[in-house]
């Protein structure tokens, strides 16, 4: 009944709209041509710079220094030498393969640790009762305000005092704790959406909180974990500030830091920089393209991260 009413209401405006369609068509074509131009210009500006560097990374060193990358359309000439050089450190200082491993070793715990700790905390804030719960939740959420910079120097002193300097622990701990305010907030929001009846039913059946957490809540949290996880993955993989402060040794420095150092020491050597940049980009780009949907969801849910 309601459906047919809605259907009828929907037809009327369409019928009216067709009457003026001829008059509007010319105007529409004009504006659509202009919008097409704008779209193409933006799309070109957003892809060509990356494409140029990608092409450069496959050109011989001598060509890179004497002509622009667009010359490959005139004289195609490709090589894998640049990648060989950056990966094996024949003359670029540190081999980027080491930095690549460091990036992995930093990023995997940098994503797993905050998710685990935040899941527990989010569960407590969503499904247990204790005095000061709501106040503490607001405090943790508010800590997003604190810029990382405000904590760096005292934190570095703490790590040095604890004998952790030079290991991976300072980066892991820092990434974990800086991620907690957003992670707790996001996961808590998702957890609150689980129907209370579901939790209560399990509780009535005699399940304790550990069981409810593991067998009721956790299985329902996969999309939320994926959304936050990919966000955090890109964040940690692409970070420079924290690794520069806490992981600035050849044994621990990640790709971003190795690249930044390469810019400092070999700033004009585009054959190294271009190949290095793409080695660093390949993992986040792959993850991003594969999980784009989750990333968008995470962005829309947590776009207030400070």
């Amino acid at each position, binding site marked *: 009944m309601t459906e047919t009413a809605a259907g009828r209401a929907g037809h009327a*405006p369409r019928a009216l*709209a067709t009457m003026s369609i001829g008059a*509007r068509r010319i105007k529409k074509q004009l*504006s659509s041509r202009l919008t*097409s131009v*704008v*779209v193409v210009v*933006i799309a070109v500006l*957003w892809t060509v710079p990356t494409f140029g*560097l990608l092409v*450069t990374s496959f050109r011989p060193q001598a060509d890179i*220094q*004497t*002509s*622009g990358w667009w010359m490959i359309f005139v004289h195609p000439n490709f090589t894998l030498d640049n990648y060989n050089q950056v990966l094996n450190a024949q003359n670029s200082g540190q081999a980027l393969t080491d930095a690549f*491993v460091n990036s992995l*070793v930093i990023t995997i715990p940098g994503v797993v*640790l905050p998710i685990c700790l935040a899941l*527990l*905390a989010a569960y*407590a*804030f969503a499904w247990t*009762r204790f005095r000061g*719960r709501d106040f*503490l939740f607001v405090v943790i959420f508010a*800590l997003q*305000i*604190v*810029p*990382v*910079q*405000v*904590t*760096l*120097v*005292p934190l570095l002193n*703490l790590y040095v005092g604890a004998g952790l300097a030079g290991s*991976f622990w300072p980066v892991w*701990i820092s990434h*974990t*704790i*800086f991620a*907690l305010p957003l992670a*707790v907030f996001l996961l808590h929001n998702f957890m609150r959406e689980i129907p209370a009846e579901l939790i209560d039913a399990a509780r009535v059946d005699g399940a304790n*909180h*550990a069981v409810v957490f593991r067998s009721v809540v956790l299985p329902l949290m996969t999309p939320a974990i994926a959304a936050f996880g990919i966000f955090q993955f890109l964040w940690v993989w*692409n970070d420079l*500030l924290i690794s520069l402060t806490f992981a600035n040794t050849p044994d621990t420095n990640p*790709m971003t830091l190795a690249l*930044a150092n390469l*810019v400092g020491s070999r700033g004009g050597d*585009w054959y190294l*920089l271009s190949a*290095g940049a793409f080695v660093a980009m390949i993992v*986040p780009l792959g993850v991003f*393209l594969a999980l784009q949907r989750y990333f*968008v969801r995470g*962005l829309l849910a947590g776009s*207030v991260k*400070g």
Partner: protein
Amino acid sequence: MDILSKFAIMLGAIGGLVLLVAMLLFLAGRMRGRSESRNVGWLFIAPAVLGLLVAVIYPALKTITQSFQTSSTGSFVGVANYITVFTDPDQLVVLANTAAWVILSPLVASVIGLLYATFVDRSRFEALAKTFVFLPMAISFVGASIIWKFVYDYRPNIAGVGQTGLLNQIVVWFGGTPQEWLLYPPLNTIFLIVIMIWIQAGFAMTVLSAAIKGIPADIVEAARMDGASGFRLFMDVTFPSIRPTFIVVVTTIALWTLKVFDIVRTVTGGQFDTNVLANDFYTQVFQIGNTNVGATLAVLLFILVMPIVIYNVRQLRKAEAQ
């Protein structure tokens, strides 16, 4: 350290965490009686709360204290460091540049994101077209800086020497003289801001596109019936409907912009009058050893960020309440 032992240490750390979580769950499983809920609650938030206390709250308080002390003796000097930050000629350049970054990059990135989202909405190539603009978000600031530094690359203008940077080549094609874009203020700061816009437009586009799709169809249909289309439809219906989202996007990008130091550090290192607050902080603390001026800059960053975050949270609450 070889690769295997690095991965071994990593697995050890993750194993340790799994053990910790298992232990907390085990303890939670043993709890009984009236106080169970309370005890489990405290148990589960304990790691997060302890971590935040030690690694965020204590260091932040310490930094705020340091901003009122001297670097050499640690004695209190009142607001002397703040006076330095607001009067030193170099610092004034830093503040002016930071202002330019915070005003330009959020606004331009949001407008471009909005235009693009509006124009590709419901077109045949929407998904692909969006991926193009979105992709820079997956690239690190360092990677994006290298991409654009190459665009700005300069070769002396001598016969027989080809330009390698795209921007200078375009200038040459149009009969101009190639420039060293990154050397001369204030234009060099604009060229750096372009990089930030390039990265953030994808974020703006994604969030605004979702907002545009959320506009109720009957509102758009009613406006069309009244004869609105194209620009009029956008100004009268689309933009007013998504204005709250647009403002949150602008403020969020402003927030990120305040704290980004990677671009300036990678492209110019803060030279040629391009320095900004976040990079100046790093230079003062870790390169000059001026810890207390650095602390002051960090606190300043904190103060600048605070109203934006509070505003954003309020907007978010308002949106949720509706």
